[in-house]
């Protein structure tokens, strides 16, 4: 029974199926609402699913310059890492694997998909991919600084004068004291986190790495067929994971305790957050240059999160 539950956790909820389905839904909604914001009709909401299935039906070409094994393994590794990361994340109150990974671990687990993308792109041997991976890496460097500041601020707020990186404790604290978003000191951090999400997911204006009009989708340039499908799925899943992480950090107070209801609220939260920080930002901005992106994150966003850290330290 125990094993069945674990298998269910991995494959259905909150594992592969749930993450994949919600991710694809978020991606579809993102496209639909973006289209509406641009006064278009837009694709159907299940368009990402169509894209995914279609790519499965396409031939996969492994180029001559590519290292075959790494080229094909990279998307799968990224996918698995994302699914496992999702397993460690709480769905509001519900936690599949209690106490298996803390905040810092999550921060690092989240870099694995990026590294998979980078290594995969790098292994394809394409010069455009070379440029793309460098930009992806600079993007990672950019958002990691604010992200760690945010996490430390949250940890200080929850833990007080003892070390606390545990997501369970953060959830428990929020259940007891209300969502952390309500805290004055953490508001800048929440804004910073909202700005981190699009960079982590890689949407406009922070999609320098996959700028399809300049460097032809960067690391993905040589990918076709099923591996490309998996990479697209990874991007969709990242939307789910980042928005869930946001709600775990700042909106944990909304948990009801009933798993099904929690999952529903979680999905709604994810949708709301996606629409706020990915779709709206995408609709009203144009792509940044990579050096401006770096500057933006290390000044504005990092400033916000550092401000939050200092405020928390001062006891607000």
């Amino acid at each position, binding site marked *: 029974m125990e094993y069945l539950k674990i298998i269910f956790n991995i494959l259905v909820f909150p594992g592969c199926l749930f993450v994949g389905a919600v991710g694809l839904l978020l991606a579809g909604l993102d*496209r639909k609402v973006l*289209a509406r914001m*641009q*006064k*278009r*009709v*837009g*694709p*159907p909401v299940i*368009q990402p*699913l*169509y*894209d*995914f*299935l*279609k790519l*499965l*039906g*396409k*031939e*996969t*070409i492994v180029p001559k310059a590519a290292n075959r094994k790494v080229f094909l393994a990279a998307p799968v590794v990224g996918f698995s890492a994302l699914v496992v990361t999702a397993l460690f994340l709480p769905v509001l109150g519900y936690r599949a694997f209690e106490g298996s990974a803390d905040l810092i671990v999550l921060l690092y687990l989240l870099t694995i998909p990026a590294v998979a993308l980078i290594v995969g792109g790098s292994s394809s041997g394409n010069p455009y991919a070379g440029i793309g991976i460098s930009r992806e890496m600079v993007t990672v460097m950019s958002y990691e600084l604010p992200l760690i500041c945010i996490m430390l601020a949250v940890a200080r707020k929850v833990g007080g004068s003892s070390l606390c990186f545990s997501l369970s404790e953060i959830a428990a604290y929020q259940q007891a004291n209300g969502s952390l978003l309500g805290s004055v000191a953490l508001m800048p951090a929440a804004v910073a986190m909202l700005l981190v999400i699009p960079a982590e997911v890689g949407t406009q204006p922070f999609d320098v790495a996959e700028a*399809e*009009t300049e*460097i*032809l*989708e960067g690391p*993905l*340039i*040589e*990918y*076709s*067929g099923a591996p*490309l499908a998996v990479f697209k799925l990874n991007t969709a899943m990242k939307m789910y994971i980042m928005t869930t992480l946001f709600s775990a950090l700042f909106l944990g107070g909304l948990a009801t305790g009933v798993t099904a209801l929690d999952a529903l609220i979680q999905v709604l939260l994810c949708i709301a957050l996606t629409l706020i920080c990915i779709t709206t930002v995408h609709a009203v901005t144009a792509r940044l240059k990579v050096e401006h992106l770096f500057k933006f994150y290390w000044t504005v966003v990092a400033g916000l999160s550092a401000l939050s850290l200092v405020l928390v330290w001062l006891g607000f």
Partner: protein
Amino acid sequence: MIKKAIANSMQRSPWLYHVNTGSCNGCDIELVACLTPRYDVERFGFKLAGSPRHADIVVVSGPVTSQSKERLLRTLEQVPKPYCIVTLGSCPQSGNVFKGSYSVEAPIEKFCHVDVAIAGCTVKPEAVVAGLYRATEILKAKREAMNK
């Protein structure tokens, strides 16, 4: 069932890769016009892809100058199967006013099989939408043929 779903998706999510083989930009602009709110081909899942490796439909415009012929053929080779080739406007089919020029290799049919030829000079966006839509049906048929 999966096969059927894949074949259906093939029709609903065609990604375009656009090759300009010396076009005057008229057709290119009209293709871009199809992405604008008024025509919005994204309704049918169309999307401009950056790389031929992602493409389902290769859209060719321009009279295939001798400089671009080699590039065009190389690009077409790199597209994963199944895929369609759609020509935009008169130029790729005949060379249009450039017909007979020393630098134009015009009828594209000499090098590759064209699935849908859209005529016009330039093409009207509605014609592009309709033509591309026809191409998606061909794509689906091609995918179904692959299954057999």
